[in-house]
C-alpha cells in the first residue's frame, strides 16, 4: 500500500529535540563542576581521596537510585526501600552471627531485599486499585517492624565476624569498590532504560498504562519485576551498609527513600511517570553527594544543608516548568 496522495513524512530525528533533552544533563554537569570547584575553594580538604573516602555511605544509596528511576518512570513510587535496607541488613547480620558462612549470609541479605520487593510487587500488581504510595507506606512500617522484632530488645546487632564482609570495603587506590560497582550499574541501567525494548516498555507503561496494555506490553509483569528489582537493589544497599557499619539497627536506612526520590527528581525524572532518564538522575546524585560532602567539610549546620537540598529540589522542578511557559509565551 503506497501513500495515495504521495505525501511523505520526514524520518530524520530533529536535532532541536535532542538538544532540549541534552540541556538538562548539560546543566547538571555544569552544576557538578561548579560544586566541585566551590568545594575546592571553600574547603582545603576537598580532594579526590577525601571525597572518595567519604562517599561509600552515599554510594550505598545510589544503588537504589537506578531501581527508583525505573519505578518512577513506570509512574509508581516505592517509599519502603529504606525499611528494606534495614531489614536486609538486619537479617544478614543475624544470619552471619548465627554461624552461617559469610557468603551465605550475603546471599541471604540480597534475597531478603528481593523478597521484600516481591511482596511489594505482589500487592501492587494484585490490587491495582491501590496507589503504590499506600502499598509501600504500609510495607514500610511492616518491614521495619519485622527488623525491630528480629533485633529484639536493644534494637541493634553487630557482626561478630566482619572479616569476610570486609571485602566490600576494599579500595583500589583511593577509590572504593562500591564506586566501580556503581559505575557498572549506571552503565547497565542507563543502557537498559534508554536503548532496549524493556526500557521502551517502561516508558510506555509510565505514559499510559492502558495504551501499553492494548499494545501487548505485559504491564503487571514488568511492574512486578521492577518492584522486585528495587527490592534487590535495596538489599545491595543493605549489604554495603552492613559492611560499613558492621551491623544493623532499627534506624538503619531511615529516610533513604526520600533522599533517593529527591535525587531522581533533581535529575529530571518526573514522579508522574514516563519522563526523564537515568543519566540525569545519576549525575544529579553525584551532584548531591558532592554538595553534601563539601558543605559537611566547611561544617555547615547539617539542618541547613537539608534546607538547601529542599530548596534545590523545588527550584530544579520549577525552572523547567517556567522555562517551558516562557518559551510558549515567546512563541506567541
Amino acid at each position, binding site marked *: 500500500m503506497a501513500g495515495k496522495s504521495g505525501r511523505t513524512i520526514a524520518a530524520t530525528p530533529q*536535532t532541536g529535540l*535532542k538538544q532540549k533533552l*541534552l540541556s538538562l*544533563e548539560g546543566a547538571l*554537569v555544569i552544576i*557538578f*563542576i561548579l560544586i*566541585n*570547584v566551590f568545594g*575546592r575553594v571553600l*574547603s*582545603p*580538604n*576537598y*580532594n*579526590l*581521596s*577525601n571525597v572518595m*573516602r*567519604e562517599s561509600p*555511605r*552515599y554510594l550505598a544509596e545510589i544503588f537504589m537510585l537506578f531501581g527508583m528511576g525505573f519505578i518512577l518512570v513506570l509512574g509508581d513510587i516505592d517509599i519502603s526501600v529504606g525499611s528494606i535496607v534495614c531489614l536486609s541488613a538486619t537479617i544478614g547480620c543475624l544470619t552471619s552471627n548465627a554461624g552461617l558462612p559469610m557468603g551465605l549470609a550475603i546471599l541471604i541479605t540480597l534475597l531478603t531485599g528481593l523478597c521484600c520487593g516481591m511482596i511489594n510487587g505482589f500487592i501492587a500488581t494484585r490490587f491495582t486499585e491501590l496507589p503504590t504510595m499506600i502499598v509501600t507506606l504500609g510495607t514500610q512500617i511492616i518491614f521495619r517492624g519485622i527488623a*525491630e522484632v528480629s*533485633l*529484639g*530488645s*536493644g*534494637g*541493634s*546487632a*553487630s557482626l561478630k565476624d*566482619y572479616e569476610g564482609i570486609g571485602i566490600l570495603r576494599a579500595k*583500589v*587506590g*583511593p*577509590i572504593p569498590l562500591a564506586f566501580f560497582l556503581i559505575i557498572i550499574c549506571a552503565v547497565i541501567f542507563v543502557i537498559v532504560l534508554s536503548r532496549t525494548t524493556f526500557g521502551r516498555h517502561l516508558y510506555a507503561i509510565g505514559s499510559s498504562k492502558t495504551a501499553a496494555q492494548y499494545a501487548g506490553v505485559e504491564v503487571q509483569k514488568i511492574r512486578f519485576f521492577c518492584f522486585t528489582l528495587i527490592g534487590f537493589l535495596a538489599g545491595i544497599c543493605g549489604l554495603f*551498609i552492613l559492611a*560499613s*557499619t*558492621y*551491623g544493623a*539497627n*532499627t*534506624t*538503619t*536506612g*531511615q*529516610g533513604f527513600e526520600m533522599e533517593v526520590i529527591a535525587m531522581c527528581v533533581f535529575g529530571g525524572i518526573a514522579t508522574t511517570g514516563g519522563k526523564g532518564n537515568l*543519566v540525569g538522575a545519576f*549525575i544529579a546524585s*553525584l551532584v548531591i553527594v*558532592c554538595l553534601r*560532602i563539601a558543605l*559537611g*567539610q566547611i*561544617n555547615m*549546620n*547539617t*539542618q541547613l*544543608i537539608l534546607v538547601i537540598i529542599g530548596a534545590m529540589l523545588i527550584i530544579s522542578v520549577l525552572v523547567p516548568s517556567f522555562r517551558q511557559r516562557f518559551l510558549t509565551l515567546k512563541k506567541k
Partner: protein
Amino acid sequence: MKKKVISVLLCVAMATGILAGCAAVPTATAPAADAAPAEEAAADEAAPAAEGAGTFAIVTKSAGNPFMDRLGTGFEEVIKAAGGEVVRKDPESATADAQIAVIQSLISQGVDTIAISANDANALISVCNEARDAGIKVLTLDSDVDPSARALFCNQAGVEAVGQQLIDAVYDLTGGEGQYAILSATSQATNQNAWIDAMKAISEGDDKYSKIELVEVAYGDDEPQKSTDQTQALLQNYPDLKVICAPTTVGIAAAAKVLQDQKSSVKLTGLGLPSEMAEYIGDDDAHSCPYMFLWNPIDLGRLAGYASLALYNGEITGAVGDTFEAATLESSPYTVVDNGAGTEVILGPPFKFDPSNIDEWKEVY
C-alpha cells in the same frame, strides 16, 4: 554517532569536573596510592592554624537537643581556653548513619581528636577505627561505642552508680514495696539499656529490694506522643502502680505531664533536664516528680574537653591508671579506670534535683 560523541564529551566534562574540583596537585598528578600522605600533609597544614594547639571535634547525638548542646558548650569552653580550635557537629538526625557521615567529614578535615556521643555502640566501630588509622584520637562521652574503637570513655556516672541511685529512688518512693514501671527511650538506646540492666541486677542481688516489683519496661521512642500513650497505658494496665522511673529526658517530661494533669498518685523519678522538669518537681501532691537525677552536661562536656587535650598532648593514652588535670572541675584530677569492658573516666555521681535546688538549676540547662 552524534549521540556517542556527546556522551564522550559528557564523560570528559565530568572527569574534568572531578579533577578541577580536586585540584590538589599531588592527587591530580601522583598515582592514587599517594593519597594518604597528601592527607597527612593537609592535617599538618591545619595544625599550625591553631598555633600548635590542634583542632578538636565533638559529635553529638542529634541537633536540636539542649542536653547535647550543653555538652558542646562545656567542651568548647575548655578547648577555647587552651587555645585550640573547636569543631562542633550535630548530625542531621539521631541515627548512627548520620553520625558516620559527620565523622567521615571530620576525618577529611584532619582534626586531631573527635569526641563522640554515639547513637549506636556497634555501627560506629568501623568509622572510629578509620579515624584512628588516620591518626585521630577518638574518645566518647555520654554514650559509648564499643571499647575497641576508642581510646577513652568520659562517663557521666558509672553505670552501677546510676542504677543504684535509680533503684534507691524507686525504693524510697514506693515506700519499700509495690509495683514500679520503667519508661525508656528507644529499645536500642545504649545508655538506657545499661542502666535498666543495672537496676535489674541490683534489685535481684539484694533482698532489700525483694518487695518492689518491676512490671514493665515501656518504650516511648523519645517522642512526646508515644511516651504519653505509653504512660497512660502503664497507668491503665497496672492500677496498683506506685512509681514510674524514666531514665530519659523526653520520656520523663512527657510522663510528668501525664501524671500531673491526671493528678495521679503515681510518683515519678528518673533522669531529666532541670529546665524541662522544673514545672513538675515538688514534694506535694500537685507535682508528679519529688526528685530526679542528672549530671551536669556542661561539666561532662568540659571533662571530654580536658580528656581530648590530654590525649592530643600525649599526656594520656587512655590506658588504665592514666591521670589528667581538669582545672575547672571539682574532682580534678581524673584517673582512667577499667569498667570491665574498656577504659573510662567518671565525672562523678549523678546530681539530685529536688524542690530545694531546682529553681537554681533550671536556668542553667
